[in-house]
């Protein structure tokens, strides 16, 4: 058990534990805060995968914007201040069964793949992931078209969200 493996196990347990709390806790604000913990765990996983830029962008975009949006939405859609109604609907055993089957199916399918247990090659020295990422996102021979389409998508989402949620007096 090398140190890296121990760190991975701790972070993975933290992430999965927080995710379980997200989907089972009754108080929705607590669920949103447990989501923040889960997203932070995922950011640490990205850092373990040598994707430092992704880790920081995860914190900025998910925790700094999306989680706060969730907290605002929970606060704006509450009828009373204490939620003590049951949070799961009457088919919860079916949902649990389906989730477990999905997990088992995914793992079983991947196990048959030859590269399932391969270890990571070392990152070539002097490899600057960020400048390479910037090159790929803006060069016409690479992924500039999905990048531009994503920006149009964000513009449409921005306009749409403002229009839908606008409180016309």
């Amino acid at each position, binding site marked *: 058990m090398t140190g890296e493996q121990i760190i991975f196990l701790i972070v993975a347990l933290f992430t999965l534990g927080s995710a379980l709390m997200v989907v089972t806790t009754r108080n929705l604000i607590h669920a949103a*805060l447990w989501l923040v913990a889960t997203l932070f765990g995922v950011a640490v996983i990205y850092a373990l995968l040598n994707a430092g830029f992704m880790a920081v962008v995860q914190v900025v975009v998910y925790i*700094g914007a999306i989680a*706060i949006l969730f907290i605002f939405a929970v606060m704006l859609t509450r009828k009373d201040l204490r939620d003590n109604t049951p949070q799961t609907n009457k088919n919860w055993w079916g949902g649990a069964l389906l989730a477990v089957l999905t997990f088992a199916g995914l793992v079983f399918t991947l196990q048959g793949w030859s590269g399932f247990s391969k270890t990571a090659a070392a990152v070539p020295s002097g490899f600057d992931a*960020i400048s390479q990422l910037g090159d790929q996102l803006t060069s016409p021979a690479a992924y500039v078209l999905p990048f531009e389409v994503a920006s149009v998508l964000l513009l449409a989402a921005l306009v749409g969200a403002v229009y839908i949620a606008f409180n016309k007096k």
Partner: protein
Amino acid sequence: MNFWNDPLKVAAVWLEGIFTGWGMDAVFAHVLVVFLGVFLLITLLMVLDIFLVWIERKVVARFQDRIGPNRLGPFGLIQPFADIIKLIIKEDTTPDGADKVVYNLAPILSMMSVLILWAVVPLAPVMLGIDLNVGVLFVIAAGAIGTLSIIMAGWSSNNKFAMIGGFRQVAVMVAFEVPMLAMLMIPTIFAGSMNMNAIIEAQSVWFFFISPLAALIFLIAAIAELGRAPFDLAEGESELVAGFNIEYSGMKFGMFYAGELLHAFTFGGFWSILFFGGYRFFGLEQVSPFLAILILIIKAMLGYWVIMWVKYTMMRIRIDQMLGFNWKFLTPLSFALVLVTALMNTLLRGADSWLFVTGMFLSNVVVGWIALEIARSVARKERERVEGPTKVVEAHH
């Protein structure tokens, strides 16, 4: 490497030698030395925080034409210690119906988000917490955690004023992150990297002279991020009692208050690193890291003084005016500035240093002028719509 050139490495090697001499594992000794380094930095920052309280009170007094605390110790230097003792011995209340875990976690997260910023501040050419190659983006990430702590504080206090104050403060912080992020791109364009050390190394001419408009917009966005006047609607006493920290008393309030001052000092430091050359001062920083730290602290103090000057001179702005200012003026202006800067940087890339500086400076002035003219014409149309066209008074001979 002797002590004066690289103090931290010498100390770390010496300590690791002692620890392994006691029979500790080498990796474990290294981790312990790193922890000791972090502990030392945080201790020094908290001691600095205490003196920031003193500086703040003396400076605000001078702006208001009075003297400030001068009874305790020479020049009132013991005053902040008295403040801290008062805050510690105050009763630690938790409001009825508050969410205890979230309520107690919020001031800790708020202080944490300020302290982790110092991991990427380059104190000297060889003294840096972590040499992240996304150092600039890390600043925004730490700000995101600070935003989260404020909404936690506002919600968990079980108090309507706290919630409204928290909502407003978070709306302002999330809004002003956009121009701040765009203005952080400008030193990145000039330096070709997001690494803090690389940005300082690229400042043979300070970026303030190359792109003054970027420095100005970054300052405005940073003051709004800090929640200080003129953007402190969330915690103005006459507006909302004390905003999100109404229900906090004792040391928890002290954490919010001292955290805000340290945050302001940190952003003074970032302003000086990104636009005023950081620890560079005509080659003095190569002499010794201690001199570099001193230069950085002096520049950060000057930046902090500018932030305090703005706070104690300007009036508070209303929340809808703040958000309108951001979304209708600052954000388009900052995007236009990034476009113009990238264009001019590509055009002038191989040019002579003087041509580069003058070209960029003029392009900044032009962009700022056009933005102000557009703002003026929009304001004039608005005024004429409300009041009617201004009558031209004829001069009587």
